[in-house]
């Protein structure tokens, strides 16, 4: 009893029971099904991977997903930082509404977002028709695809930065201010370095989400192999519909590896930065 107290843990009952049930449920509903994909795809002959990599459609889909998700995540980092800044530092009417609406992409079903965006940005839609006058098509191009990914990713970035900005000690800014630093210098030299890990986390989450996104992009993307507007998840779904399970599993493994490497890299950068800071 005393020993337990000194260690400060396991005073509260129920460790074994809750741990056991949690791990069992996690395994049954998430880990075992996912492991099936891994085991299946690792048992595929090497020729299957050669077939996948040498397929132009698959390569293009990976290029499209990666480049558009990357661009969308960068755009989200810029606007996400501005939004978080405005929400934390300024008082204005409509702020509560603005703050609430940020999470719309979490709450709105992806298919609904997909058909709405596709309609809005098509050449006859409210926003698309403005650009169509100048001969620019938005829907069914990579631009439309990127817009949909910006929609999906924005809450990840804002919600990563907001809490850090709220806790930021204003003393350094005030010091900078008193020493006569320009506003932009204060932002880029003092505030931005503090926000960098949070921005990076938001970037990683938005990028990873964008890579695997399906419902909100398939309508606006056009899914044309010729125009390189097929995304990876669309190609996996196509393979599934043709009962090409080997193809679907090998592409899925590729996507899982990229998502894992992204999140791992971002974790590493953050640990590195935290060490340097301390």
């Amino acid at each position, binding site marked *: 009893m005393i020993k337990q107290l000194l*260690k400060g*843990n396991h*005073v*509260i009952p*129920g*460790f074994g*029971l809750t*741990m056991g*049930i*949690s791990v069992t*449920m*996690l395994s049954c*509903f*998430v880990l*075992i*099904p*996912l492991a*099936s*994909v891994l085991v299946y795809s690792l048992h595929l002959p090497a020729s299957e991977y050669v077939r996948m990599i040498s397929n132009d459609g698959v390569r293009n889909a990976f290029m499209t997903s990666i480049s558009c998700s990357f661009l969308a995540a960068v755009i989200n980092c810029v606007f996400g930082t*501005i*939004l978080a800044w*405005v929400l934390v530092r*300024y008082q204005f009417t*409509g702020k*509560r509404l*603005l*703050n*609430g*609406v*940020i999470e*719309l992409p979490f*709450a*709105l*079903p*992806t*298919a*609904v977002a997909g*058909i*709405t965006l596709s*309609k*809005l940005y098509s050449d006859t839609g*409210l926003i698309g028709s403005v650009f169509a006058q100048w001969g620019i098509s938005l829907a069914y191009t990579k631009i439309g695809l990127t817009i949909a990914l910006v*929609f999906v990713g*924005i809450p990840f970035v804002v919600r990563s930065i907001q809490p850090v900005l709220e806790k930021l000690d204003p003393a350094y800014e005030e010091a900078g201010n008193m020493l006569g630093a320009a*506003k932009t210098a204060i932002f880029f030299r003092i505030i931005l370095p503090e926000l960098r890990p949070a921005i990076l986390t938001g970037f990683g*989450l938005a990028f990873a*989400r964008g*890579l*695997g*996104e*399906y*419902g909100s992009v398939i*309508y606006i993307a056009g899914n044309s192999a010729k125009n390189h507007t097929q995304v990876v*998840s669309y190609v*996996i779904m196509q393979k*599934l519909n043709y009962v090409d*399970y080997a193809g679907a599993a090998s592409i*899925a493994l590729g996507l*899982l590896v990229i*998502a894992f490497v992204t999140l791992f890299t971002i974790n590493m950068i953050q640990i590195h930065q935290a060490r340097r800071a301390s």
Partner: protein
Amino acid sequence: MKRNKTEMALIAVSMVFIVVMLIIPLISVIVNSLREGLSFYAAALTTDYVISALQITLLAAVIALAVNTFFGLLAAWTVTKFEFRGKHILTTLIDIPFSISPVIAGLAFIMTFGRMGWASEYVTALNSILGTDLQIVFAVPGVVLATIFVTFPFVFREIIPVLNARGNDEEEAAALMGAGGLTIFFRITLPQIRWALLYGVILCTARALGEFGAVSALSKARGATFTLPLEIDALYMSGQSDSITAAFAVSSLLVLLAVGVLLLRSFIEYKSERKRAL
């Protein structure tokens, strides 16, 4: 209040971004759904396909909600009340469904329970013993499993920050005075987390009702195993203008739900801010 130019500009940028990216799409769903008038709207919501889809969607959402709430509470209890090795790994594993393509989630269940999945022979064996004809993939159980998978971390994620912020002092005191686990949970922990739990439950429900990619891989029979998002997809993809309007009519139901989620979120935040201020 006097504002400087930067402040005005940043607020303006934020407002334009939010209106163009989030609010216009939201309004456009409603406008599109009413294009053919109210009687068409009502008729579009009461077709046999939509009613069947609504039933399947609600069934999947209710089961997913029950499973994930139970899991979320137990897992959050394990992670916040006890210190143990591998805690970080456990939370990372629970978060997996957030960063995985929904299409891969669908693929995972095909790889497990599908014709060539390792678990299919057990399902067949179970069926021959019980004399039943239970199907998982391309049937309602598959839809339910996919829904559970994609919404798995939601309740857990929402209550973790509250539990971490409150600490374990009260629970430890109660445990030392001889209270049992269930008493501690219902008398101390539950009242602390009730708003976060409510929000997690609502967000989980919204996501469960709106899941598209994972369910789409596992459900192919319109009018039998289709959920509302799949019905929206079928209506939209048929391409005729009145069925596209019907797709938006069905979407408007899910939009109302999303708006409800956001309102509740704002309400909960407002309440907790007031509590902090008092």
